[in-house]
């Protein structure tokens, strides 16, 4: 995935949706691809999403209430080729439940390329880093605006695929503005790594996406899409909105 990102020749767009949120959730992935996604983040819903705001909490709860399981989500995408990498994202309890090796192997077998675990900081990540590496899963680590310099370098160093720049002090969710501190974080990261840096959290409008991807190598868009899914928008409509982001990024960059 990382190699592909480096070779993309454009700012990256990584939309997110919660796996198993609707019967036709896989159709949203296809729509994301059609809208110009460079990769797709698929949330494996967890009962206690402590870093997520109300929108993704609601989506997680809704997916779980429909009987969605991580196993089921993996089965849904196994054998499908979207043309872009899939990145799983979930909380560490689901990883620990299977054990890092089995968990990563299952991801790989389902066709996932990457993994994000927001509640797993560098210090606790050793076991999963090793297991992911062994399974050929790229584990992207998170960096935050308050991460001090030496630690930032370590995170960038040990991250795979990209570095997830958590652009604000808060949870996932829609925001009015792109946090000013985020540009500084991206710059600090760029100064210590040549790994792609994706700006995540709070990207709500095409303008946000354009603005954030000036400094960063691209953006991750979650709640703004999930909100629409929860409100009943179909794959085409949500894909249409994502396409406006794609255009704004490509023009603004």
């Amino acid at each position, binding site marked *: 995935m990382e190699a592909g990102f480096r070779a993309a020749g454009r700012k990256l767009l990584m939309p997110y949706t919660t796996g198993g949120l609707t019967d036709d959730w896989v159709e949203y992935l296809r729509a994301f691809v059609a809208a110009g996604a460079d990769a797709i983040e698929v949330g494996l819903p967890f009962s*206690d999403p402590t870093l997520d705001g109300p929108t993704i*909490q609601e989506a997680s709860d809704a997916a779980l209430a429909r009987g969605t399981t*991580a196993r089921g989500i993996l089965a849904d995408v196994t054998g499908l080729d979207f043309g872009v990498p899939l990145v799983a994202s979930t909380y560490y309890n689901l990883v620990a439940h299977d054990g890092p090796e089995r968990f990563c192997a299952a991801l790989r077998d389902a066709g996932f390329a990457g993994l994000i675990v927001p509640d797993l900081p560098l*210090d606790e990540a050793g076991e999963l880093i090793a297991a992911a590496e062994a399974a050929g899963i790229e584990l992207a680590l998170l960096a*935050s605006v*308050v991460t001090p310099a030496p630690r930032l370098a370590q995170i960038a160093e040990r991250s795979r695929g990209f570095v997830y720049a958590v652009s604000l*002090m808060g949870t996932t969710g829609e925001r009015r503005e792109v946090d000013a501190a985020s540009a500084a974080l991206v710059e600090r990261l760029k100064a210590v790594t040549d790994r792609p840096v994706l700006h995540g959290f709070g990207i709500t409008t095409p303008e946000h996406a354009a603005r954030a991807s000036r400094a960063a190598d691209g953006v991750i868009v979650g709640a703004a899409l999930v909100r629409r899914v929860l409100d009943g928008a179909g794959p085409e409509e949500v894909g249409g909105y994502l396409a406006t982001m794609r255009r704004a990024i490509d023009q603004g960059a």
Partner: protein
Amino acid sequence: MADPGPRGRFGDHGGRYVPEPLVAACDEVAAAFQEAWADAGFRRSLANLLALHVGRPTPLTPAWRLSAELGIDLLLKREDLAHTGSHKINNVLGQALLASRMGRTRLIAETGAGMHGVATATAAALLGLEATVFMGEKDMERQAPNVFRMRVLGAEVVPVRSGSRTLKDATSQAMRHWVGVVDEAYYCVGSVIGPHPYPYMVRELQRVIGDEARGQCAAELPAGVPDFVVACVGGGSNAAGTFAGFVGTPARLVGVEAAGGAGAARGREGVLHGFRSSFLQDGDGQVTEAHSIAPGLDYPGVGPEHAHLRDLGRARYVTVEDGEVVEAAVRLARTEGIVPALESAHAVAWVIRAAASGELPPGASVLLTLSGRGDKDISTLMELL
């Protein structure tokens, strides 16, 4: 009970599973606590508050009539007499002093039964801080008087409407909130749970229970040490504080959980709320909802040190059912004139059962930490009587 080291490990348990934005905040708390705890001035301030404001030491009350009925020698460590009505204040005053020392102006807390929330609101008032308390909507209904108390004390109480609308979700919400306000606010965790250094710090702040009880037992009991030391376990702070005083003695340590919230006795290895420990989960690794008549025990996990003590075999974790708990509460009220918190009544229920079954041999001496008073549970009790 040892220092868990810089990574906060109790055997396999503990650690610090928090999102990157919270790592620095946890580091800062850990460093500040280490420094404060080594500072005699800080310890003196805290000891002073505990004596002058909270009423420590709390007495060790021989439960004369119940002992006679059960054929054992039951001693109650009276945390119900601590200011605000439970042991929670011991921990909160320490953390609130720490927050002040760190220059924070606001305390954040989660609460289940409301006792930790009331204690936090109290400490905030006393030290001139603000307080924001997250509480599950279901718990707000069950423990309405405590919601009022927090508000009278000037705290903001934020209802949590997600998930089971109890302690687990309040904790998640408090952590989410903390991410956004780490610079100004201090997260005052209410039990021996959460990311390092909380499980360690809260145990250290609660060990006053065990240290006092140890001295009191030495004066009271012929053997100097009780045969059994029993405490209820939600997250496990009153038990951890109690056990800390006796882990180096031959006393047998027993943690009593709610049958519907038995993280230690019935949980599986997992990670939640920043720590690795034993949690109730379904076959898919989703954390399940706990169910207990005692909101303070309505938590699906247990502090990491308890998981470790269990693994070591140094402490045993047992469960009691809601029905036994209510009976035990009423029995203690009618034999000793003490209406215990329903949380604390779990420990009483197990002692009653174990004395009847012979698990507690006749004449056994038992130290039981009565973690709180039952005023908050009166309407629950009356509905069931």
